């Protein structure tokens, strides 16, 4: 909450919260607040999806980006960008479809007769991710220059195109997604011990998987459609939360939502103000903070 107020107070134009004239009200309510709130939703979506995937796969590296989910969503959005410019909801729908298809592909590739193997899953995720990025690169070089600019910018993670309808959709998905994943938190706790043990405790392992993968795809899909590729949020935020509250998923999932929201809102505030009145893509800031932080966490453990 403090981060939200802080972010709303800062921007390329100086505002005082009291005594606003009409223009300043417009800046605050039409431009800055939608963007700050969208940033919060995107951060929460990515962090929650990352937290749930890490527990489900018992792999600290599991992350929407690593598992191909993000790139599936990015490719879907890109197709919507090129072919369905007119429809406002084409982007989130295509992004969700892309995320689901990528998730299913990775899941299928990882599944062998002996059941699911986590190493195989991460490996298939990496392969699908790189394959999808090569398609994205290919399409970018085929697109014409005018479309390219807005797309490449979006690909880097950009919250400046926040709209109110985009925000409502992302908000709805993040609320439903977080509730759905929190409801699986106990099952996820048991699955962290091992899938066989979880099964013995009466956890319907397959159902949990489907809920987690489905929710993660929806969360990542809408987040990517709204803001492009904001990296490292799904990876480091859950780790930081576990350091703070322990590894009980009943706490990790909701706290990841809060921490993810805070992280992206603060990163975007930096993106908006560092070189004002010009702007930076928020994805560059999250990666700039995220990568060294991740290395630090890695060395600590």
């Amino acid at each position: 909450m403090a981060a939200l107020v802080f972010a709303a107070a800062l921007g390329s134009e100086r505002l005082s919260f009291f005594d606003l004239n009409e223009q300043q009200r417009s800046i605050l309510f039409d431009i800055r607040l939608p963007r700050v709130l969208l940033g919060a939703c995107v951060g929460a979506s990515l962090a929650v999806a990352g937290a749930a995937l890490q527990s489900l796969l018992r792999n600290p590296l599991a992350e929407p980006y690593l598992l191909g989910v993000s790139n599936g969503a990015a490719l879907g959005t890109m197709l919507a960008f090129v072919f369905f410019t007119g429809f406002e909801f084409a982007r989130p729908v295509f992004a969700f479809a892309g995320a689901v298809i990528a998730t299913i592909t990775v899941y299928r590739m990882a599944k062998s007769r002996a059941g699911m193997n986590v190493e195989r899953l991460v490996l298939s995720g990496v392969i699908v991710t790189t394959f999808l990025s090569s398609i994205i690169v290919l399409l970018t070089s085929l697109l014409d220059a005018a479309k390219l600019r807005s797309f490449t910018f979006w690909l880097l993670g950009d919250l400046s195109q926040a709209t109110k309808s985009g925000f409502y959709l992302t908000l709805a998905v993040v609320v439903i997604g977080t509730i759905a994943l929190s409801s699986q938190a106990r099952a996820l706790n048991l699955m962290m011990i091992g899938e066989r043990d979880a099964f013995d405790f009466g956890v319907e392992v397959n159902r949990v998987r489907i809920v987690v993968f489905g929710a993660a795809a929806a969360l990542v899909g809408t987040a990517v459609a709204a803001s492009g590729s904001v990296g490292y949020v799904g990876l480091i935020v859950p780790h930081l939360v576990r350091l703070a509250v322990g590894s009980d998923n009943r706490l990790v999932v909701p706290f990841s939502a809060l921490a993810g929201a805070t992280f992206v809102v603060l990163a975007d505030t930096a993106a908006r103000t560092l070189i004002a009145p010009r702007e930076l893509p928020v994805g560059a800031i999250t990666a700039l903070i995220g990568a060294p932080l991740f290395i630090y966490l890695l060395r600590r453990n």
Partner: protein
Amino acid sequence: MKRLRKRIAWGLLAAVCLILFESGCRSGTTKDRSISGSAPEVTRTVTDDLGNQIRIPQKIERAVSLAPNLTEDVFAVGAGERLVGVTTYCDFPEEATKIQKVGDTLNPNIETIVALKPQIVLVSTASQLEAFSTTLADNGIAVYITNPKSLDDIFKDLTQLGDIFGTQNTAAKVVSDLTDRVASVTQTTVGTKPVRVFVQISKEPLFTIGKRSFLTEIVRRAGGGSVTENVETAYPNLSKETALALEPDVIILSDSPDNQEPNDAFKNSPAVKNGRIFRVNADLLSRPGPRLVNALEQIAADLKAVPTK
């Protein structure tokens, strides 16, 4: 196994043939040279916009242009028929579309260029082809780099190109015509109160012109003042909050499919309220060549109708 060996043998043979062919070509050209220039080839030295000294033959017959504004420059100085390669963006004048394409401005194909055997390759710094220029220079091709940042720079480029192609008279005529047109525009605008203009290059994300753009000068000469003239860089990605607070009286849209209306941040600006939105062909605005003067004339005409408070 036998088949495989056979294939390898054929492959090797083909490779050897290629090498022989290639070296044959090379010796051919050197021979040509020694015949045509019985004395050692006469060259001269020109200096490009970056201050590099470039040795080129006395007479240029084959040139490649790697930027649409340079292609327009070369045609303007009357040497268009000597262009043997241009980029896919080079679509003006019409004759330029019939010249062989060597790739686009950002990704020209080095092999195509070398195969065209140009005596000079014209490059614009805007294309960021520093590494590429080095490769061309390593292949013995003269690279001439231009860096126009103002109307005066463009006129200088035209004069220089006239020198390079030996069409000094045409170039001088073009430059004096353009100078006259600029002067007649400036005459009507000098001393008037500048109209506050926002130039929108792209709607989403919001890109505009900054301190280093040659368009800032064009707007000023046309009787306006760019409201973003103090923003760093040439084409900044502008904060929408700042955009909203600028309240321009006129918005000029660079006319491209995704830039047909002003960004939502301007919905309460005087420009939108009074319907003072003008579109200018994106090619005129983006190419620092002779047609930039057309853009100047059009913007000046648009701004003339705007009452200044």
